[in-house]
C-alpha cells in the first residue's frame, strides 16, 4: 500500500468511523431491525464514502454526509425492488380518526411519556416498508415531504397519506401496549 493510500485510509477511519453507531442505528431502522441487512447496508455506504473521500470537504458535517450516502444507498435498493407500485390495502385502523382509541382514552397523550423506547422502535419495525420509510425519513431524518417524495419516487400527496397512516398505526400499536401495561384503559 502506498503511503498516500495509507494516509487516506487512516484519515477516513478517524473522521468517518466515529459515526458508525449512528449509521448502524439508522440502517437498523430502515431495514426494520434486520441486523445482517443493516450491516451490509452500512458496509456498502462506508465503501461508497471511502471511494468519494477525496470529494468530501474537510470541516463540513461528516455525519450528515455519511447519513445521506447511507440513506441514498438504501433507497436505491428499495427502488430497484419496488419497480412496480405495490397497492396498499384499505386499512380500517389507519383510517380511524385520532379521536378514537388512544386520543379518547388519553387526550393529553401522557401515555407517550411512559412507553419504553424499545416499544416505539418495535412498533416502527412492524410497519410495512412503504410506511416505515417515510416515517424514518421525515420523523427521524427531518426531511421535507418533497425530499421524501423525490427519494422514494412517489407523489407528495402519497407521502402525506403514508405518513398519516403510519403515525396512526404507531399510535394504535402504542395504545395496545399501553392497555396491556395498564397505562390506559
Amino acid at each position, binding site marked *: *500500500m502506498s503511503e498516500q*493510500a*495509507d494516509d*487516506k*485510509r487512516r484519515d*477516513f*477511519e478517524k473522521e468517518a*468511523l466515529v459515526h*458508525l*453507531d*449512528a*449509521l*448502524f*442505528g439508522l440502517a*437498523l*431502522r430502515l431495514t426494520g431491525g434486520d441486523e445482517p441487512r443493516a*450491516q451490509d447496508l*452500512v*458496509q456498502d455506504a*462506508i*465503501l461508497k464514502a*471511502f*471511494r468519494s473521500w477525496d470529494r468530501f470537504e474537510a470541516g463540513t458535517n461528516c455525519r450528515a454526509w455519511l447519513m445521506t450516502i447511507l440513506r441514498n444507498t438504501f433507497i436505491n435498493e428499495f427502488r430497484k425492488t419496488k419497480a412496480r407500485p405495490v397497492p396498499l390495502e384499505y386499512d380500517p385502523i389507519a383510517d380511524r*380518526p*385520532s*379521536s378514537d382509541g388512544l*386520543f379518547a382514552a388519553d*387526550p*393529553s*397523550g*401522557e401515555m*407517550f*411519556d411512559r*412507553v*419504553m*423506547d424499545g*416499544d*416505539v*422502535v418495535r412498533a*416502527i419495525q412492524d410497519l410495512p416498508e412503504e410506511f416505515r420509510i417515510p*416515517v*424514518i425519513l*421525515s*420523523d*427521524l431524518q427531518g426531511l*421535507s*415531504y418533497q425530499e421524501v417524495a423525490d427519494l422514494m419516487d412517489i407523489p407528495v400527496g402519497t407521502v*402525506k397519506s403514508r*405518513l*398519516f397512516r403510519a*403515525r396512526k398505526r*404507531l*399510535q394504535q400499536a402504542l395504545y395496545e401496549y399501553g392497555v396491556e401495561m395498564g397505562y390506559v384503559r
Partner: protein
Amino acid sequence: MSCDECLEVLYEFLDGELDSAERLRVRAHIESCAECFQHLKFEKRFLEQLRSAADHDVPSDSLRSRLLEVLQREAS
C-alpha cells in the same frame, strides 16, 4: 376554518409543511378551539416521543472490525 379542515392539516402544520397563510389560518382556529388545541398537543407529544425514542445510535463493535478489514483491502 372548520375543525375537520384543521385536523386534516394538523400533521402538515406540525411538520412545518404549510405556507404562511395556511399556518396563520390553523393557528387562528386553534386559538379559538379547545378541542383542536387538545388534538394538537396530543399529536405534538406523540411526535416528540417518536423522535426521541427511535433516533439513537446502536453499538456496532463487530461491524467496526469487519469494516476495518474491508477498508484495508480497498486501500491496498
